[in-house]
């Protein structure tokens, strides 16, 4: 098992190096004078030259790259132009908000998509199957920001069931004492059920929005992979041996069918982390996505760069976890490693 994790870690290293190089190149090599960019439109030539020296932009490119990597190793992502705050601190403070939203969306999507996909495969050709097909095609066609707005209109404006889409808690409530940064968990630890209820209410609609988006690929993959497994010989044997349908489908078929689904999760995460940015914008969610969007509007590049890097590292780590989970579930993958 350790050997497996080790070999997977080794495969993540080139991706990590690639990501660092790309984020570095995004600021330094591209057209336009970075120093003039950082100095702002009204800067004098002296000020630009000063900034150039300060940022180390007068050094040759490899030296600049070395500086960048050294700073990264110390956890320094630079500072925001507009607020002057270090980017790394800001991202660390905002990460739990994004993580809570993304995880809630993913869990919700899995809870709906997997049983649905299984049902569609088991009852192939019935209305369950057809509705699954329609849902998966429609799901990937929905712009996630649009779904979010529709849900806000229906559940906030029309029905009044949901609170105003303005962040994690309404302005008068105070967040629970921080332990994990997840309001749902922190409020439970503090035994504050009122805050738990309030933050859950804020979370539901954005999480559902993300879930609708993530549902389609998961349900589609579950259905396809269940169909393949259900027509295989070991399932036929299990059926012939007189096992109950429950045992055949859940114990025998499902476990095998999960492997391709777990592989798909990597792609789903790529979509989810991107969709997260849009959902955070719609719901004024104070995560790292809205931090990057705010910075984009003011042409503040350091936060954007930090955000892209943080997301990419997060994505690599998630893929690593998926790979390891795959090894845990499938003994064959373990022995190949």
């Amino acid at each position: 098992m350790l050997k497996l994790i080790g070999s997977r870690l080794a495969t993540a290293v080139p991706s990590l190096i690639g990501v660092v190089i790309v984020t570095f190149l995004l600021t330094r090599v591209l057209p336009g004078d970075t120093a003039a960019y950082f100095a702002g439109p009204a800067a004098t030539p002296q000020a630009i030259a000063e900034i150039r020296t300060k940022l180390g932009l007068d050094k040759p490119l490899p030296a600049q790259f070395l500086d960048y990597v050294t700073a990264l190793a110390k956890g320094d992502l630079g500072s925001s132009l507009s607020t002057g705050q270090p980017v790394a601190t800001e991202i660390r403070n905002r990460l739990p908000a994004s993580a809570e939203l993304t995880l809630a969306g993913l869990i919700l999507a899995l809870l709906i998509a997997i049983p649905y996909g299984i049902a569609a495969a088991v009852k192939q050709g019935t209305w369950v199957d057809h509705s699954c097909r329609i849902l998966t095609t429609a799901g990937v066609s929905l712009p996630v920001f649009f779904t979010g707005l529709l849900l806000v209109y229906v559940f906030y404006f029309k029905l009044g069931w949901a609170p105003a889409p303005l962040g994690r808690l309404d302005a008068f409530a105070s967040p629970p004492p921080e332990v994990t940064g997840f309001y749902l968990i922190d409020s439970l630890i503090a035994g504050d059920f009122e805050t738990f209820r309030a933050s859950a209410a804020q979370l539901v609609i954005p999480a559902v929005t993300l879930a609708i988006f993530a549902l389609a690929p998961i349900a589609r993959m579950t259905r396809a992979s269940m169909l393949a497994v259900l027509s295989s010989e070991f399932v036929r044997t299990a059926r012939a041996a007189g096992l109950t349908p429950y045992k055949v489908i859940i114990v025998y078929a499902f476990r095998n069918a999960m492997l391709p689904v777990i592989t798909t999760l990597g792609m789903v995460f790529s979509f989810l982390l991107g969709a997260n940015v849009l959902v955070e914008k719609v719901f004024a969610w104070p995560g790292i996505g809205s931090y990057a969007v705010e910075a984009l509007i003011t042409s503040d590049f350091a936060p954007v760069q930090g955000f892209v890097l943080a997301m990419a590292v997060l994505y690599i780590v998630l893929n690593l976890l998926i790979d390891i989970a795959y090894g845990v579930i499938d003994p064959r993958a373990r022995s190949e490693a």
Partner: protein
Amino acid sequence: MTLANPADAPRPASGLAATLRHAHYVISDNPVTGLAFGMFLILVVSALIGPFVVPYDPLASNTAMALSPPSTAHWFGTDQLGRDIFSRVIVATGLDMGIAICSVALVFAAGGIAGIASGFFGGWTDRIIGRISDTIMAFPLFVLAMGIVAALGNTVTNIVIATAIINFPLYVRVARSEAAIRRQAGFVQAARLTGNGEWRILLTQILPNIMPIMMVQMSLTMGYAILNAAGLSFIGLGVRPPTPEWGIMVAEGATYIISGEWWIALFPGLALMFAVFCFNLLGDGLRDIVDPQRRT
């Protein structure tokens, strides 16, 4: 070239009649694909003819009529500046489709050729191109697109480039596997034997043969390209107001959703869904025709 080649064989009954007959065959085979073609036609018509027939100037504001709900005069209502949303939605078709088509064409040229070269030559070419794709795939794609547009500058051209870059690995993967299968095919060896250079074989023999698969890929990624471009302009990148564009229009409408003015965001959002849905259906339908085994 003296050897007979399947690609050079005269096609029976070429021309408009054959095209129509084939279109009829395709549509009657699968009604959903027929529907998708119909939707596609609507999109093309609104993109090409729309700007000349819309009832109002998409940029003309009329504050007296601001925020009025859909009516017979304004089918989709008006926005906060009193601009006619129906006209704006129709006119935006051209820009949104244009961005998607340009980026797909760009990535088809770059990713397609890179993928074919990768699969055909193998070795170092394959390793370098594979490494580039892997690096792109290491990012969550929309996030990478944001970073690219932020760095290159906030313009429509850069939206096109960013969308093309994030789709690059997909095209490389498809083209690479298709080219690798055909690397030692009989017709390739025949072409080599008659003295064609490797690049010439790649462009005149391999490329035409993998075109059907690549067309499916293009149709499937069109939908994603539209979504991606609209998402970027939704967060304020690329297209700028007052240009009519679906993503921006939804973003403008977002402010008014909370106070109940639903029509500003709804109609451009529906147009966006319509276009993406159309290309996804079209892609699925084309794939069923080109490659029936992958039908799911």
